[in-house]
């Protein structure tokens, strides 16, 4: 194995593959920074070029493009509350308030450092899991995945602190919205109001744009202000952001592990890694009441998780030939086209290529963060632009992003309708994060519950994995209660 690792690194560290890696990272960051451009859409456009390359060049290029989108996403999430992609929605909750307080540079710097460390940890787990893959993947079936969604849904309470009834109602409303469209298991087309456009359901990109981006744009336009007007934009912050990440190194590791697990389990989807990590951080960190007001931990948690997920994602893709999502599926097509043979045999026949992929992942994360640091200062100036410049730009980006979700003009109208709802939710204190989480997790919760019952009747409740996860869920609720009780006893 050591020889293969060295061979993989040697293949990658040649001028031409490195050049492709740098280009891939640059394109991946740029696509990630622009809502609606990155992710599977970008990968689909670049795939034909990659398929003409030699294997090592294709690996370097594709990994560069595919693994750094979440790093690039952070710019718009922090600076203007527009979720750059599915992996950076939770970052808005604390990143944007930090930007409004003039701490945009600190937020961005912390997120890039967390992204880099999270990505490296994810790559490490990809490497470490080689000997234990099969039992690892086989341990988690539909019942266990259902418990993960329950864990996710239970975070609604955490995200609703201050308005619990509204939060839970918003979460349930989100799950209801997620049922729109064709239900595969029954064939029923639900809530389509006679419109075939709705048979695909409503894209999560659309939902998060509507409830986060547009209401914030309305607020900015209404007060005729800037992003950073609560406090002027500070001169310092980049170094502080880096220090913050190392101060909270335990949080980085824990949230990276959350991301790795979400990636390993095909079927949970990339949108949940950041939410799981954010909620976990809020549950387990001291002084959680500052989360949501511009706490840097609220940026570090999701950003380390969503990059660690990339390594986890590659595990079923490479070692089972079974991709967990659209981006992984496109990567798989590219790998096969250049001669790789993902599947259980790849460990025996192409281990050097596997290590080339792992090394490419590590280098991509480091390179991406370095490139982003270079752009922090100019990017942060967005916070002091006047509303008459920012508002039309954000609206244009949001509409383009909404359209690019499905290339359907009807999505523009849906965006408007949901934005009205998002605006009213913000105005009357209805939590929006639980609504988004409900839309993300709803389909998976229903699917895995259905599969569990269809396959095991009610016997799935006695699966060891289900029991263990149930205890974990109870434990994650009990821990803050126990911690607070202990603090009160100590104070008394």
């Amino acid at each position, binding site marked *: 194995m050591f020889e293969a690792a060295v061979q993989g690194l040697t293949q990658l560290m040649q001028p031409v593959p490195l050049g492709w890696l740098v280009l891939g990272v640059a394109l991946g960051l740029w696509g990630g920074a622009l809502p609606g451009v990155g992710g599977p859409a970008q990968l689909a456009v670049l795939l034909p070029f990659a398929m003409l390359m030699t294997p090592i060049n294709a690996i370097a290029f594709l990994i560069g493009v595919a693994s750094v989108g979440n790093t690039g996403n952070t710019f718009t999430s922090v600076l203007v509350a527009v979720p750059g992609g599915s992996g950076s929605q939770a970052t808005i909750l604390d990143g944007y308030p930090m930007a409004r307080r003039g701490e945009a540079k600190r937020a961005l710097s912390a997120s890039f450092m967390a992204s880099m460390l999270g990505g490296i940890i994810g790559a490490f787990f990809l490497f470490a899991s080689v000997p234990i893959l099969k039992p690892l993947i086989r341990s988690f079936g539909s019942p266990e995945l259902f418990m993960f969604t329950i864990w996710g849904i239970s975070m609604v309470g955490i995200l609703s602190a201050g308005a619990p009834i509204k939060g839970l109602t918003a979460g*349930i409303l989100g799950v209801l919205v997620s049922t729109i469209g064709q239900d595969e298991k*029954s064939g*029923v087309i639900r809530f389509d109001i006679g419109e075939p456009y709705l048979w695909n359901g409503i894209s999560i990109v659309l939902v998060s744009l509507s409830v986060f981006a547009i209401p914030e744009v309305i607020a900015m336009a*209404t*007060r005729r202000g800037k992003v950073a007007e609560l406090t002027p934009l500070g001169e310092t912050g980049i170094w502080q952001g880096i220090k913050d990440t190392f101060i909270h190194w335990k949080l980085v590791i824990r949230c990276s592990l959350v991301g790795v697990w979400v990636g390993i389990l095909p079927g949970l989807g990339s949108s949940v890694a950041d939410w799981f990590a954010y909620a976990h951080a809020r549950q387990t960190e001291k002084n959680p009441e500052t989360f949501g007001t511009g706490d840097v931990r609220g940026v570090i948690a999701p950003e380390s998780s969503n990059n660690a997920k990339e390594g986890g994602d590659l595990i079923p893709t490479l070692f089972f030939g079974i991709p967990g999502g659209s981006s992984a599926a496109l990567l798989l097509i590219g790998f096969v086209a250049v001669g790789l043979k993902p599947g259980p045999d790849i460990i025996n026949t192409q281990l050097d290529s596997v290590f080339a992929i792992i090394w490419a992942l590590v280098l991509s994360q480091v390179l991406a963060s370095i490139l982003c640091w270079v752009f922090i200062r100019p990017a942060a100036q967005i916070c002091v632009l006047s509303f*008459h410049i920012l508002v039309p*730009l954000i609206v244009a980006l949001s509409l383009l992003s909404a359209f690019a979700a499905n290339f359907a003009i009807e999505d523009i109208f849906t*965006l408007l309708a949901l934005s009205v709802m998002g605006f009213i939710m913000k105005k009357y204190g209805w939590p929006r994060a639980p609504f988004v989480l409900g839309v993300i997790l709803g389909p998976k919760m229903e699917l895995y519950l259905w599969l569990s019952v269809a396959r095991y009747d009610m016997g799935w409740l006695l699966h060891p994995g289900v029991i263990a996860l149930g205890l974990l869920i109870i434990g994650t609720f009990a821990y803050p209660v126990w911690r607070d009780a202990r603090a009160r006893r100590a104070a008394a």
Partner: protein
Amino acid sequence: MSAILSGRNLFTLFILLVFLGALVTASEWPLRASIIVLVLGVCGAGLALAQLIVDLRKPRTDKDTPRPTYETPSIETEDPSLGARATWETWAWLVGLVVMVPIVGLPVALTAFVLLYCRAHGGGWPISLLLTALVAGFIYGVYVQIMHVYWPSSWLGGLLEGIIEI
């Protein structure tokens, strides 16, 4: 009476009606499709009703509405009337933009929106034209040249095509 018919209460009532409507619709489906809607719909309706009762018994203003800790403050402005007018005006811009999309097409509507909004709110011609060029260039460069997006035809586009054919 105005406290009962406040925007807050009307929105909660709207949420309650959404859940009730979902329950009625789902009752016509096979159980396999409806079970999750029925279960969650009942819970959601119950919670919405509870929230409505809480709000009716204890009317609140925007300022003392309990908020999730992460929610940024609501619309802040020194002049309340400016706030309401500015809000309606901003929504009018958005609605106008969305209405224009099927008429002139998304690229044209967006480019025009950027130019007009910037000019109307104090931007000089240089900055307005620069922003417009930026957006138009982005749409053309990324969406047309790179992603080869298929733009749905607009009403005006269809009209012009018909005139040209004649």
